[in-house]
């Protein structure tokens, strides 16, 4: 009769055969393109011609003098910080209310808040473009109706506020999704834990910080990583669909600037150098977030 070690040895080829298709796909669609981005960042190439010239680190040196790149980087960091803080704060607040308070029409609120997450980002961009319309938009129209003409703005045409107009759309789009994620974590906390803390005299606020937050910490960790990714990826789609990076590049984010350089400006190598910066930045921030929030999961 074969022992456990022999059985393990025997199942090795079978496990390998099962893993092989996934491994091949992973290498083909993840590793190869990523390595290619790094490789292409050392070349100048228009994207169409057969001529590729190796330029070493020249593309990265060019980045240092590119004001538009710096602005796109600043916009990405600003969206990352502001959208994360606002969405996370509001998501936690709403999830706590929906879970802990016996609100009438709670299911309706949850549905209304979750609907934007189901919509395509392009549809959301169309909705917000209509809302922000200078003449006939809902916001400026309402302000005119209330005789508050002084508060009317060119929401997508003013360099000072265009990024925050995009940030509002980002928060609106993702709030419901994160709220539901937090609610699922909160719903799994046993009621006895809250009863015990209430007997000890804990207020609702104290319960939130001492019971709820520690017990949904793993959800928070996961969503923080999602925030980093969505600040880079979601912002690109919204910028492309709502402003195209304008006015005068003031709403450009890293990914939209990379896309512009690689596919519109025919500077593929330079675009890939920006891609390397995006990769390094996202990777570093995700790593730091993971390290900063690491703790032993609580059993309950």
């Amino acid at each position, binding site marked *: 009769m074969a022992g456990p070690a022999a059985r393990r040895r025997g199942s090795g080829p079978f496990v390998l055969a099962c893993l092989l298709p996934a491994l091949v796909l992973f290498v083909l669609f993840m590793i190869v393109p990523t390595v290619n981005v790094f490789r292409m960042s050392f070349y100048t190439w228009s994207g169409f011609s057969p001529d590729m010239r190796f330029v070493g680190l020249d593309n990265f040196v060019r980045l240092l003098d590119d004001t538009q790149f*710096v602005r796109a980087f*600043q916009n990405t*960091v600003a969206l990352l*910080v*502001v959208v994360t803080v606002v969405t996370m704060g509001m998501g936690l607040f709403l999830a706590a209310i929906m879970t802990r308070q016996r609100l009438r029409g709670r299911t309706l609120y949850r549905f209304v808040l979750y609907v934007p997450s189901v919509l395509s980002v392009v549809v959301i961009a169309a909705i917000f473009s209509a809302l922000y319309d200078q003449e006939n938009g809902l916001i400026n129209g309402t302000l005119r109706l209330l005789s508050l003409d002084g508060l009317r703005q060119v929401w997508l045409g003013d360099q000072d506020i265009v990024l925050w107009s995009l940030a509002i759309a980002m928060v609106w789009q993702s709030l419901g999704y994160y709220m539901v994620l937090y609610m699922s974590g909160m719903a799994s906390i046993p009621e006895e834990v809250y009863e015990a803390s209430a007997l000890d005299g804990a207020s609702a606020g104290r319960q939130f910080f001492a019971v709820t937050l*520690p017990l949904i910490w793993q959800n928070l960790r996961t969503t923080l990583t999602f925030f980093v990714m969505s600040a880079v990826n979601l912002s690109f789609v919204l910028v492309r669909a709502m402003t195209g990076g304008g006015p005068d590049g003031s709403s450009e984010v890293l990914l939209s600037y990379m896309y512009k350089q690689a596919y519109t400006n025919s500077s593929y190598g330079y675009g890939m150098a920006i891609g390397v910066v995006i990769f390094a930045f996202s990777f570093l921030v995700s790593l*730091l*977030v993971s390290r*900063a929030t690491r*703790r032993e999961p609580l059993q309950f």
Partner: protein
Amino acid sequence: MKDSTRGVLLVTARTIIAAACVAAVVVARTTVGWDSLAIMLVALAVLLGVLASYNRRFR
């Protein structure tokens, strides 16, 4: 100093630092340049530091 007072002071300090970091990011964005970007990245790093310091006692 009592533990409860120390706890309240710590929470207040962390909240103020976090709010200051968010404000720094918003204000620094208005000027385009490597200096402003560096300020924003430092503010982001401090925010993560505040998160790490809050999380340390739970590790």
